[in-house]
Each structure stands twice: as structure tokens, then as C-alpha cells.
């Protein structure tokens, strides 16, 4: 079944909030997943893997301990949503030096943040790990190799230029499993119904047969 990218975005936001990450990070995850789907990459599958890995973790466990030097997670592993948010926030530093990250899980999820960093600095930004590299100029992205590593050490740098623009997709076709998982996690953001909420929460009138 094909889904609107808005549906992907809405579900991704709720699912990320569902594992206890903040609303601001959930917003990043939603836009990032949408971006991956628009590139024809398996965005929902990647987010499902990221959220499975990080369910039960605190954001601090899987964020860079410091933005100086090589980025390393407190738990020894970096979540690509937390590292990606920091990559967006530190885009300006790319004009001074590369950013290296150790042991990022599901690094494909860093691609949309690399795209965002390229828009910030107004230049082409490349990202690479073992067996894969990508270049983003803020409008277009090109990829070499397969991006679906489970984890990798990553280098992000200013360089290169985009050679071949990729086609943009307008629909997403997530696998049934990943879509089901995202929806299950999204369920956690819904409050169980109570008698009071049924009666008053929506505040409808008493009859509509008028």
C-alpha cells in the first residue's frame, strides 16, 4: 500500500515520542523519515530499527557526550537522531573541521541531517562510512554504495559537488512490519479513555439530530 508523505511524517513523530524521546527530537525524526522516503530510501524501516534500538534508553545515553573532538555516546553507541540533531546544530563548524562520530547505529538516518547541514552552510556536505558515501548540496543528494549498515563510524565534511540529482518520490511504500511497529509505538502517545474524557474531553453537543 502507498502512503502520503504527510502520513509518514505524522506517524513517525508519534512513534518517536512513543519511546520517550522529546517532542523536538520527534519532530526531527518525522521530517528526517519523510525526507528519506522522498529520496526513495527505506525511511520507515530505518526509523523502525532506530526506535527498536533506543526503546527504553534515555536521550542522554545515546547522544554525543561532547561536541568537541570525535563524537562518542555515553553508552558507547550513538543514536542517529540525537547525533543528527547535533549535526544540524553544529553545521557551521564544518567550515572549520570535519565531524567524526563513533559507532552510530543505523547511520542512514544521518542523511537527512546532512542535507539540513548543507542548507545551513550553503555548500556541499559529504558523509561517508565503510562501503557508502553521499553528497548533499541542500537541494539534491547523490549516493554511492548501500547505506543500510547496522552501525558505523562516520565522517562528515565539507567538500565535493553533487553530480547526479536523484529522483524525488511523492509517495512512501513502507514494509508492513515497519509500518506496524511505528503505529504500535505511536499508540503509546494516546491516553487511555476514561468515562470523564468520553463525556467532556471532546465537548460535543448532546444531539446532532437537529
Amino acid at each position: 500500500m502507498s502512503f502520503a508523505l504527510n502520513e509518514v511524517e505524522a506517524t513517525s513523530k508519534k512513534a518517536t515520542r512513543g519511546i520517550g524521546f522529546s517532542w523536538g527530537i520527534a519532530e526531527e525524526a518525522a521530517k528526517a523519515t519523510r525526507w528519506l522516503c522522498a529520496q526513495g530510501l527505506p525511511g520507515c524501516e530505518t526509523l523502525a530499527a532506530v526506535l527498536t534500538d533506543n526503546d527504553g534508553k534515555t536521550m542522554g545515553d545515546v547522544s554525543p557526550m561532547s561536541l568537541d573532538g570525535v563524537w562518542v555516546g555515553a553508552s558507547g553507541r550513538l543514536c542517529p537522531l540525537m547525533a543528527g540533531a547535533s549535526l544540524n546544530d553544529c553545521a557551521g563548524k564544518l567550515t572549520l573541521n570535519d565531524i567524526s562520530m563513533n559507532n552510530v547505529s543505523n547511520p542512514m538516518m544521518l542523511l537527512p541531517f546532512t542535507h539540513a547541514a548543507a542548507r545551513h552552510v550553503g555548500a556541499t556536505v559529504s558523509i561517508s562510512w565503510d562501503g557508502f558515501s553521499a553528497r548533499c548540496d541542500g537541494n539534491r543528494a547523490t549516493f554511492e554504495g548501500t547505506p543500510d549498515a547496522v552501525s558505523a563510524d562516520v565522517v562528515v565534511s565539507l567538500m565535493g559537488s553533487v553530480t547526479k540529482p536523484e529522483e524525488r518520490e511523492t509517495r512512501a511504500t513502507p514494509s508492513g512490519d515497519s509500518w506496524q511497529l511505528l503505529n504500535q509505538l505511536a499508540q503509546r502517545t494516546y491516553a487511555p479513555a476514561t468515562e470523564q474524557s468520553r463525556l467532556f474531553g471532546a465537548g460535543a453537543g448532546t444531539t446532532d439530530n437537529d
Partner: protein
Amino acid sequence: METVAQTRISPRSPAQVMRLSRLGSLHQCRLSFMRILTRRMQRERWTFSRPVFEIDDKGVGVAVYSAHGPTRSYSLIAFAHDLPPEMRSDRVIATAWDATFTLFDGIPTREDIDRLSKNVPYQEAGRVTDSEISVSRANRSVRLWEHFVDALANGQQPDIEKVNAVGYLMRTTAVYGSGKLGAADREKTAERPETNAPFQVEMLSVFLTRAFVRDLVNFMAQSRGGDKAVALDPTIARSLGIGNSTGLGMAPYIVNHPVLFNNWITVREEAIARVRNVITATVSEANDFRAVLRQSERNVALWKSEHPIQVEKLADLRMDLDRLNAFVAGEDLINDHPWHRLMNWSEANLSEEGQELVASLILEPYAELVDGLAACLANTNTDSFHINGAMSVGELKDLLNECFGWACDVNWQERENCARAWYVSEEKLEPRLGERFEEPIAEYEQPLAPARDAAELNATLADWASDASVAELLLKHPEHRHTVRRLQVHVYAPYGEIQDNTISAEVLPIDMLRCKLSFFGATHFDPRSDRWVRICMYGGAPYPEEISRRDCDRWVYPELEAAQ
């Protein structure tokens, strides 16, 4: 004579405009989304056709209404149903309706109609594709529908008093666009001239729905009355709008889309400021204002509500109109910045309902100053989402102070200041507003209290040096990320934030609903509770076949001759 260049009169400040009580008093104006659409359809000589009308004598079947613009066509596919009364509910949780609709991008084939007939009648339980750009449903006004069919079947026209008391034969209970239920994303239509302004897809869907409803009631009367039946008088038909019943689901929208919301308010405030800067009005502009004021009085006279809050606001508005008429009678409305003086007088003498009515009405004589601003309503800034991590904490503090300084002085521990929480119910996936201290909902709270969240960020910032970066701050405090994003948006979207507490014990969600609906161009706001409102859309508007020859701009104001 040349005069010394005067300082331009500025738009009203966000602090003045963005209060909930004022946003909850807004009225339609020249920039309302329905009027933008009908003006365009006339200007571009749109034509309309009804290629399918296959309805049986029980009122069940399908009809297609196509609108043909200069380069594209759009078709409303309407499914009419026979709904038992016990299933009629305006709430989003309903599972069956009197009629269901989709707006198709182009002209549907028979296969498209067959496919959609298996999905659209089920609404949320069905799926559509990116050939469809909206999905909606409507219920009859039971009282008025039966009266119409009965009267027309017996050769009589409906009782105009009954028509005026309700104003519509059907009310929509949801109009979904932008990728909902599998429909095309907004991006598919955003760059098209006819759908660039906000909600034009939804407004077109409702415009065509109104024609379908008129045709259906005529058809049902004909089926029942046979030779005795008469067709609905076109003047009565024109007075009918389409109702809309809106609950809490719409309220979060204006909080969740701060850039878009900013554009709407900015555009209206800029329009008001342009007219206030008119140094000298012409006689015909002054007369035009007087005429539209009289027509507007008729609109207010027809506006009925039984809800205590709106009853009081309407009483104030009617008193405002008396005062306004007395003031206007003694003014030439021509010299010395007439509209600026009128606005200043209204701020000192009228309720917010009256002030905002004046603000909308002074735009009417000035199409050339106002209408072009419609091009600025859409959100085209795709970079507004990206946080600037290089900003210093000092700059962020300044922003916070400017945007939410007032919120930092609120004691958010006091129960009445945080009595409510917005959440989504597991049961029906609908937004609700609950009592934080009486229900187990706090952990499910949606981020719809920007003022409270800004105050929390402010407390965190007390421990941070001004030269630290936002990147460092957010690394340690990702819980503030959504708030930092909003503050950075505020730099270029100063009207994007409601300057009020959206979770207080006193908050009235209907203020948020009315604000949004006023931009659609709705009239006759009729709250059914503090979080549920009915409105009327397109009352007085031309029907599709009248677009080329009737007033496609000022239809919202009742014709005085017809009202005698």
C-alpha cells in the same frame, strides 16, 4: 499641495492582536479563503458541469460535479446515503453519514468512481490515493431537510424564517486534505496558482458540495411530489450555505503551524495598516463602507446562538453596531486618515467583537490595496524547521523575553494556570482537552502549551552563560528543542504565537476554532459548548452556474432588498 511625508501608521502589535479573546472575535474579510476562491473563479471564467447524477428515489447514489479552470479540472464525487437517525453524529468518531465526498484531481473515470465507492463512504476506515486531494462528509440538518422536501414536494417554497434560523441543509463534519487517509500531499497542489493560497482545495470541495445539496433536495422533492413538486426558489437557495461542525481537532492546528498562522495574521494586519494609512478617502469609498456596514448589520441580525458566551458577545456586538452607526453618522469618513481615526475610536468604544468587525469592514472599499496580499498567505519557507545551533544562548534569551516575557511571570505551579492538558485519546484518536489534576493524562500531554514550555526553558537558561551556543544547550536539554525551534521561528514570524495561556482553567478552545474558521470566511459562529462550534460557509454565494454573472466577492453580505 505637497505635505511633509508622514510616519507610516504601523500594523497592530502581536501583543495586542494575539490574545485569545481577540482571536476568538475575528470576522471574515476580503482575504478570507472562500472569497479568494470565488473571485478567482469569476476572474478566470471557470465553468462547471455535472457529468454524473445517479441517485435513486431513496436519495442513495453518486453524483459528480466538475469545475474547469484555465488549465485544470477538479471533480467532487458525492456519495449520498440513507442514514438511520440513531447513527447521525457530527463527532469525528462517527462511522456513517448522510453524504460522503472526495475531491478528485481531474475528471474521474468510471473505474475511479467504482474504486472510490468502496472507500470514501467509510472515510477514516477507507483509503484513497494521490489522485484524490480531499475527503469529507456531511450530515443533514434534520429539521430543515425534511421541511424543504415536504414543502417543495407539495408545491410550496420553504418557510424563510425556518431557513434563516438554520442557514444550511447539510453541515460538513470533517474536510480532510493534505495527505490524510492516503490523499495527495499538499506539495502536489501547492505550486498551482489556483491552489497556492491556503485551503483552496477544501474551499472548492465545500463550494461544489453546496451545489450537490441543493440539487439533491430538489431531486428528493421531485421524487416524493411528482407533478405537484416545485423547484427551490433560487433566492432561497442562494441564502443557504453549508454548515460546518467543528470540534477540538482544529484547535491544535494554529499552534502546530506557527509560520502559516503568522502569515494569515500578518497579511490581515498589513491590510488593516494599509487602509489606516489612507490619508483621504473618496466619497465613493466612504459610501461603500456605509453600504457594507448596513449589510453587515443584517448579517449580525441573522446570527443566532444559544450558547451563553456567544449570546453575551452578540449582545455586545449589537450594542457596538448602535454606537458605530451613531459615530459614523457624524463623520465624513473622508478626511484626515478616516479609517485610522475610526479604528482608534473603535478601540476606545467597542468590544473586541465590534473592533474586529470594523477592522474587517474598512478593508472592503480597498480591493486594490488588499487583495494582492492573498499571495502571501501560504507558507513557502521550507527552511523554517531547521534550528540554528550557532545562535548564542544570550540571543535566545532575548528572543524568549520578547516573545514570551509575560509567560515567565506566570506562576505555572498554580493549579488554575495549568489546569488543563491537551491529549489524544487511545479510544478514538481524537484530540481532547482534559483536567490535568483529575484525569491520568499528564504523561500523554501534546506540546500545545508554548507559553508554559517557554517559561520552563527560561528557568533552564538561568544556569547558562550567554556566550554558550544553542547547539550545546540542546545537546544537554533535548526536551527544550521544540521550544527553541518556535523561538527561532518567531524572529521572522512574530504573529505565529498565541500570546495567552492555552492550558489555563479559563481557556476557551472555541476562540482558537473561531480564529481559524474566520480566515476560511465562515459566518454565524454558533458554539455548542466551550470546545465545539457550528458555522455557515458560502451563505449568499453564487452557485457554480452563476459564477459568471453574479457578485463573486461581496456575496457574504446579504442583499438588503432581499432581506426586506
